[in-house]
């Protein structure tokens, strides 16, 4: 009936609206514009400048290449980097860490954290591991599973992968998630730390 609207809602829910960065940028623009306006008005009234008079600022700008190099170059680089970040924000997808659940007839969106903890619980139960022995990270297209069994407890990497895959298959996530499993032995843990 309104599946087109629902599709659109889902797409909007999965991507960031960029509202926070837009508000910050616009607030800075407003502050800068008001400041320049105040300086011009002060100049017109013949009152001393708040920070710098418009004429002095223009002269400074004109003679910029003769000023202290290091500071101005650093400032320019900073401004350019901020610009690159903003352009990246404008053009990037801005995906939120969520997946759509395909197993329901309604539109259902799940945080990656919920998927991760549920998969971890299933793996933990299936392999009879202690609490905290399974760590799962779910990304946009992959799930990383790290298992840390007790010393002497045999755990097969392929088994871990199969269990996690069977759990994820029940979710019918979109986009699909690829499982990568890792088993850390007690010796490895010591070697790492």
């Amino acid at each position, binding site marked *: *009936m*309104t599946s087109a*609207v*629902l599709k*659109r*809602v889902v797409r*909007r*829910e999965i*991507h960031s*609206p*960029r*509202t926070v*960065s*837009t508000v910050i*940028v616009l*607030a800075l*623009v*407003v502050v800068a*514009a*008001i400041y320049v*306006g105040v300086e011009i*008005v002060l100049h*017109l009234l*013949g009152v001393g400048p708040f920070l710098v008079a418009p004429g002095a600022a*223009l*002269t400074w*700008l*004109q*003679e*910029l*290449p003769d000023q202290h190099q290091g500071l*101005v*170059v650093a*400032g*320019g*680089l*900073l*401004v*350019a980097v901020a*610009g*690159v970040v*903003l*352009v990246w*924000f*404008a*053009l990037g997808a801005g995906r939120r860490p969520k997946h759509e*659940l395909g197993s*329901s*007839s*309604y*539109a*259902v*969106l*799940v945080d990656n954290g*919920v998927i991760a*903890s*549920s998969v*971890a619980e299933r793996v933990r139960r299936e392999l009879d591991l202690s609490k905290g022995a399974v760590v799962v990270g779910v990304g946009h297209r992959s799930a990383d599973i790290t298992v840390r069994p007790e010393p002497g407890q045999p755990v097969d990497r392929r088994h871990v992968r199969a269990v996690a895959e069977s759990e994820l298959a*029940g*979710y019918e996530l979109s986009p699909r998630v690829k499982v990568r499993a890792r088993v850390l032995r007690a010796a490895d843990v010591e070697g790492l730390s």
Partner: protein
Amino acid sequence: MNATNRGVNRAVLFIVGVLLIGVGGATVMAMLWPVAGDLWKSWSSTGVDWMVSADQASRISEATTVSWFTLAILALLALMVVIAVIVIARLGGGRSIVVIREEVGTGALGSVTIRHGFAADAITRSLESREEILSSKVNARRLWGADVLHVSVTPRQNVSPVEVAETVTGLVGRLATLLGREISTIVTIHSGIRSRLAADQSRVN
């Protein structure tokens, strides 16, 4: 989820970003490359000369230093502020209090509206009794001419999202059966600080 115009957001970020890249890049070039430095000086002195002459040519009267040129600049700055405020004020929106509306003529009994509070109460009360669901929130939105119900739930940690989805969509489905109309619904399942804190409460399965 709301009716924010995201194209405007991204356009603002893009324009400001390109301007900053231009300004920053030009500054660095002018400082580090003598040719660009000379170009900067000649262009900026041309610009400042033009501004000074425009200022002097457009004086409002002989007695003042106020010129139409400065007034135009002030107006431009005011316009920038107004546009920025309008963009900020138009963010968000789309919240609705109606879940289902039947205009006169489409329903058997004339005009019928089901308000958001009814659906919200029905769903949140039912979810409250559920052990595995910590909190739930129901919003109604009117987006692009359609009413959309948004149910967001935070389950306890380690609960399967499929079970949660079945619970919630089951409720919505029963509500739809009761009302005799399909409700376009989106369900979001969240992980949050609350679900992590509540994870250690042991459950008997």
